[in-house]
C-alpha cells in the first residue's frame, strides 16, 4: 500500500466539547474527558458501544484502561495513552485513521481532558515542565530555566537572530488570533480585544516572550471520533475526510535541537501530507496551527513552505491571518486566545470549519484545511490535511 492510498479513507465524524471551558474549578481532568466523550458520541449519532478504539492524550493522568473503565468501554480492540504531548491532535488522528483503514477497528475515540488551570498538578500549559527527562529538567532548573515558556523563548530568541522577526511579527500573530477569538463564544477571549499597545504592555514571561505570546492554561476537554469514509457517509454530521497526514519527530531537547529556526518537523510531515493529499500549499484555505507560542505559528508556517525564511516579518501584517484576511490562521482564537487543549484545539476547529458550523467566525466555503500539532519544545510534530470534498479513494471501492 502507498501512503496516497490512504487519502480520504478515514473521516472525522464526531466532535465533543465541554459545556464550560477555560476556568472551571472543582472538577477532575477525567470528568472533562467523560463529558467530551459523551458529547462526541452524540454529535456523531453513535451509541456508546459503537466505540471500539480509544486513544488518549495522557495528561488526564491515568492508565489508558482506567480511563476506559470509567467510560464503560469494556470491549475495545485498540487502546493506548500516546504521549507525544502537544502533537496529540494530529498524531492520534493519524493512528486512528490507519487503524480504521486496516479494519482493526470501526470507531476510534481520541480524547483529551485537563484541569490544568484550576486543579492540582495539571501538567498542561506554559508553566509546565519543559521537554526531557527529570535530570535535564532538574539541571535546567539549577540555572533558573523553568518550563516550556522559557525553553520556547530560547528558540524564539534564536529565531529573532536568524530570521529577523521578533515582537513586531509576534504582535501581529497574537492580535490576529485575538480577533478570531472575539468572534468565538467558547473562547476565553470572546469579545475581549487586544491592540498593539496592549500587546507591548503585557508582562515578560521570559524575554523575548511576553504573556500575550504564550498560550492559555485551561480547564476542560475535547474529543473526536475517526471512522472509515464509508461509515462516515451514513452518519449524522457532514463527513470531514483525512486527505493527507504525516509525522516527523526531531526529539532533541532545547540545548541540542538544531531545528528551532526551521525547518521543524512541520517540513517533512507536511511534505508527506501534501503528497498524500495530492495538493500544494496553494490549495489550503486556512490553517489551524498549534500555537503554544506566537513564535511557533511563525516557524511552523515557514517550515510548511507558506513563506520563505526571512519573509516572516511581513507575512502576518495588515490582518492577513485575521478575520477577513486572505489567509485565515487559527480561526477559533487558538491556544493563545481560545483554550489550551494541546493539539485538540486546532484539530477540532479544522473539522468544525469544514462542516460549516462556526457561526460568526465561519470562513467562506473552505475545502482544505491544514492542522498541525507539535509537542515538547519543537520535539514532536504531526500534520493532517482535512477536507470536505467527497472525492478520493473511497469512491473507487
Amino acid at each position, binding site marked *: 500500500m502507498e501512503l496516497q492510498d490512504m487519502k480520504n479513507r478515514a473521516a472525522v465524524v464526531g466532535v465533543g466539547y465541554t459545556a464550560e471551558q477555560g476556568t472551571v474549578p472543582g472538577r477532575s481532568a477525567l470528568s472533562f474527558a467523560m463529558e467530551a466523550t459523551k458529547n462526541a458520541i452524540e454529535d456523531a449519532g453513535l451509541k456508546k458501544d459503537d466505540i471500539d478504539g480509544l486513544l488518549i492524550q495522557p495528561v488526564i493522568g491515568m492508565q489508558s484502561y482506567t480511563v476506559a473503565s470509567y467510560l464503560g468501554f469494556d470491549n475495545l480492540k485498540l487502546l493506548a495513552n500516546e504521549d507525544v504531548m502537544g502533537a496529540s491532535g494530529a498524531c492520534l488522528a493519524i493512528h486512528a485513521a490507519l487503524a480504521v483503514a486496516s479494519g482493526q477497528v470501526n470507531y476510534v475515540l481520541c480524547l483529551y481532558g485537563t484541569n490544568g488551570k484550576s486543579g492540582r498538578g495539571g501538567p498542561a500549559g506554559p508553566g509546565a515542565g519543559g521537554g526531557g527527562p527529570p535530570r535535564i529538567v*532538574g539541571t*535546567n532548573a539549577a540555572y533558573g530555566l523553568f518550563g516550556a515558556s522559557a525553553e520556547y523563548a530560547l528558540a524564539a530568541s*534564536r529565531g529573532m537572530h536568524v530570521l529577523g522577526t521578533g515582537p513586531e511579527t509576534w504582535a501581529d500573530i497574537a492580535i490576529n488570533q485575538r480577533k478570531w477569538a472575539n468572534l468565538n463564544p467558547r473562547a476565553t477571549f470572546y469579545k475581549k480585544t487586544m491592540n498593539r499597545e496592549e500587546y507591548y504592555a503585557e508582562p515578560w514571561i521570559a524575554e523575548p516572550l511576553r504573556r500575550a505570546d504564550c498560550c492559555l492554561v485551561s480547564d476542560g476537554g475535547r474529543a473526536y471520533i475517526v471512522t472509515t469514509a464509508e461509515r462516515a457517509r451514513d452518519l449524522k454530521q457532514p463527513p470531514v475526510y483525512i486527505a493527507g497526514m504525516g509525522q516527523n519527530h526531531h526529539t532533541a*531537547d532545547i*540545548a541540542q535541537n538544531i531545528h528551532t529556526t526551521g525547518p521543524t518537523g512541520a517540513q517533512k510531515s507536511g511534505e508527506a501530507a501534501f503528497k498524500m493529499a495530492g495538493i500544494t500549499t496553494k490549495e489550503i484555505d486556512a490553517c489551524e496551527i498549534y500555537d503554544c507560542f506566537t513564535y511557533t505559528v511563525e516557524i511552523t508556517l515557514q517550515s510548511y513552505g507558506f513563506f520563505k525564511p526571512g519573509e516572516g516579518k511581513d507575512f502576518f501584517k495588515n490582518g492577513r491571518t485575521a478575520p477577513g484576511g486572505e489567509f485565515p490562521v487559527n480561526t477559533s482564537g487558538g491556544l493563545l486566545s481560545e483554550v489550551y487543549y494541546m493539539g485538540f484545539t486546532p484539530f477540532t476547529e479544522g473539522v468544525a470549519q469544514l462542516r460549516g458550523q462556526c457561526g460568526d467566525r465561519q470562513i467562506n466555503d473552505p475545502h482544505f484545511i491544514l492542522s498541525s500539532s507539535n509537542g515538547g519544545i519543537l520535539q514532536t510534530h504531526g500534520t493532517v490535511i482535512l477536507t470536505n470534498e467527497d472525492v478520493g479513494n473511497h469512491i473507487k471501492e
Partner: protein
Amino acid sequence: MTQGAGPMNRGGGPMGPGGGPPRGGPGGPSVVTAPQQQGYAKPLPGIDEENKPFWDYAKKHELRMQKCLQCGKIYYPPSSLCPHCHSWQGSEWVKLSGKGQVYSFIVARRATNPAFAKEVPYVVAIIETEEGGRLISNVVGCKPEDVKIGMPVEVLFDDVTEEVTLPKFKPAS
C-alpha cells in the same frame, strides 16, 4: 529520598548532594525549605548514574563532555549510548577548552521560582562550546542587555554548595 542517587528531581525540588539529611520530596515547592545552613535555596542539578561524572569534574573545576571512542563525536547530555553511532564501546570524558559562544539566550525578568528573586533579571543561555557540545548555563559578569547571540564566552565555576559546582559563562577576556 536517597541523596544524589537517581533521577528524582522533577524540576522544582532540590536534588540533594551526597551526605546530609534528607531534604524533602522530589517535587515542587520544597525548594524554598532548603536548610539554612546550606545557605543555598536554589534547585540543584538532577544527578544520576549517567551524568555524575560531568558534575564530579565540574566540582574539580573542569568542563568535560563525553567523546565517543568509536565515531569521535562529542555528545551531551551524558549517556551510556552514543546517539550518533550507537556505539556501546564507551566514551572518553575529554576536557574542553571552556571557550564557546552564546547560541541563544533569554532574560528572566521575573522569578518563576522564588529562590531566584534576588537574581532577576538574569540570563539563561544555550552555550555552544568550541568543541561543538552544547549546554544550558547562565551568562554572568555583564548586564543582560549586553548579551548577544554569537558573543564569545568562557567558563567559570560557581561552587554553589560544598558538593555542587555549576559551570557558568562570562564574556571572553
